[in-house]
């Protein structure tokens, strides 16, 4: 099977982006209307984020890649956080570290999160992510980054496109 490769452009954010930054609690009334909720992704913390993601999608040269620092997604268990990031058009997330629940939620949504030294990635850099091999080639700088490995069960969930498709197919967890 060929390696799963994703090409795109980095949108660089910072350390300690909380789930309240990604989708503030005051929009809880929109949680049963995900397309409407997704319009508010990172609205307070990075107001230009959503328009940059859609501009990249419109260019047709690959997907937006959210590049963060450490402890991405700290805070609440709201799975709506990775849901709205994915719905906004982001193809993958790179971070130095991700908070436990957010990391698991993103994988469960079929949104790849790879952990690597994101100091080596600048805003707007062209990236080629090899999801199978866990490598990120920074085409702008010429540097290739190795990513931390995830447990095999998470790779299997991601491969199926998330936990719900995984369970539909396997009916149970397979270690």
């Amino acid at each position, binding site marked *: 099977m060929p390696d799963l490769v994703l090409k795109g452009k980095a949108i660089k954010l910072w350390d*300690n982006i909380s789930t309240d930054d990604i989708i*503030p609690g005051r929009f809880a*009334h929109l949680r*049963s209307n995900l397309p409407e909720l997704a319009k508010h992704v990172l609205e307070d913390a990075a107001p230009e984020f959503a328009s940059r993601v859609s501009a990249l999608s419109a260019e047709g040269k690959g997907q937006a890649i959210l590049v963060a620092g450490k402890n991405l997604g*700290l805070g609440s*268990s709201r799975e709506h956080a990775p849901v709205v990031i994915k719905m906004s058009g982001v193809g993958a997330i790179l971070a130095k570290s991700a908070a436990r*629940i957010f990391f*698991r939620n993103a994988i469960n949504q079929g949104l790849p999160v790879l952990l690597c030294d994101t100091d080596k990635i600048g805003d707007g850099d062209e990236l080629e992510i090899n999801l199978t091999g866990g490598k990120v080639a920074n085409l702008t700088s010429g540097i290739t980054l190795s990513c931390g490995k995830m447990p095999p069960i998470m790779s299997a969930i991601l491969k199926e496109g998330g936990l719900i498709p995984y369970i539909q197919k396997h009916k149970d967890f397979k270690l």
Partner: protein
Amino acid sequence: MGKTLAEKILSLKSHSKAEAGDVVIADVDLAFVQDTTGPLTIRQFKESGFEALAKPQQTIIFLDHAAPSPAQQLSNDHILLRRFAEETGCRIYDVGEGICHQLVAENFANPGDVIVGADSHTVTAGALGAFATGMGSSDVAVALALGKTWFRVPESFLIELNGAFPRGVYAKDLVLYLIGQIGADGANYKALEFAGEALARMTMSQRLTIANMAVEAGAKVGLFPGDKITRDFLREHGRGGRYKLLYPDAGANYERVIPVNLSQLEPMLSLPHAVDNVRSVTQVKRVKIQQAFIGTCTNGRLEDLAVAAEILKGKKRHPGTRLLIAPASRQVLIRAIEKGYIQSLIEAGAIILPPGCTACLGLHQGVLGDGEVCLSTANRNFKGRMGNPEAMIYLASPATAAASAIKGEITDPREFV
């Protein structure tokens, strides 16, 4: 080799020899959702093709985050959740009953249980020796259907507590101090396990405050042993038979050992906009507050209201400071009425909110205005948390919140106790 508490519980529940770093599938004793994560969970449950719950009596829906609902969309989410409870036969605690984590502690959590909740503060039940952790909607949807989930067995940090709290210093100050030491991601993917001679004097209410905030250091669980205090709490709540002695083995392997001498602690604060931005109250001078908020799954219990009522009795809130009080459950409210705390608080100018999450997450009942400062006993002070990214939130103990409500500015509670 000896086992940590985390390894012990997950070994038992996965019917295997679980060691830190292993991935196991564990039986789930209790799974729950609340009203802002439940609707997505239910949709995912149905989308997966599931119809029946694995354990209806061990599945709970709590309507606590928007309680009572401030918006038609949230009211409709409540209808969806009530219908699901009718269809599946699961338990439901409707608006006004209290905060999920408090109700789990009062009614369900036991030493050695595995508990998963679609809410990050599910870790609260670690106070009772339960391996309790927050998960997203997909994971909880699957746990509802299969009665199990997968875990990576965490490495543990041993938090060794010795000495006694000085006057004016409480469990909240201890946990804020700890988060300042560890950092907001310092215990990411880890278990915090509490031990030391101070536990013999630490009430269940204090343990719940500490376990509640384990997630603010990134931890997967915050575990207390099952001891005499656990036994007494379970007996008082009608489930003495569920008690079991639960300690880590001698020779268990800890990634880090963090000793804390309680007698050296001071009243602490988390400054905006990060929980690990911790200072002693003596380092923060003359910050005016427009709102003091005492409640939440961190500090809305009877002991917390007792501390606040004692400080506020016969006094008045500062005219420039709104004082909000939210009991964590109906039972807490009833007891606080019986004990006269509510009378003292109302006479001091407090607004009593219904049992539930209330102002904590920015949906209703105490949303802040631009530039306003709130001193809150909750667990999070992220930007925008209380409904307005232009507001500032400081976190502290109920004593500090009560003292500050009187003075209208952040105040050392030792002036009053």
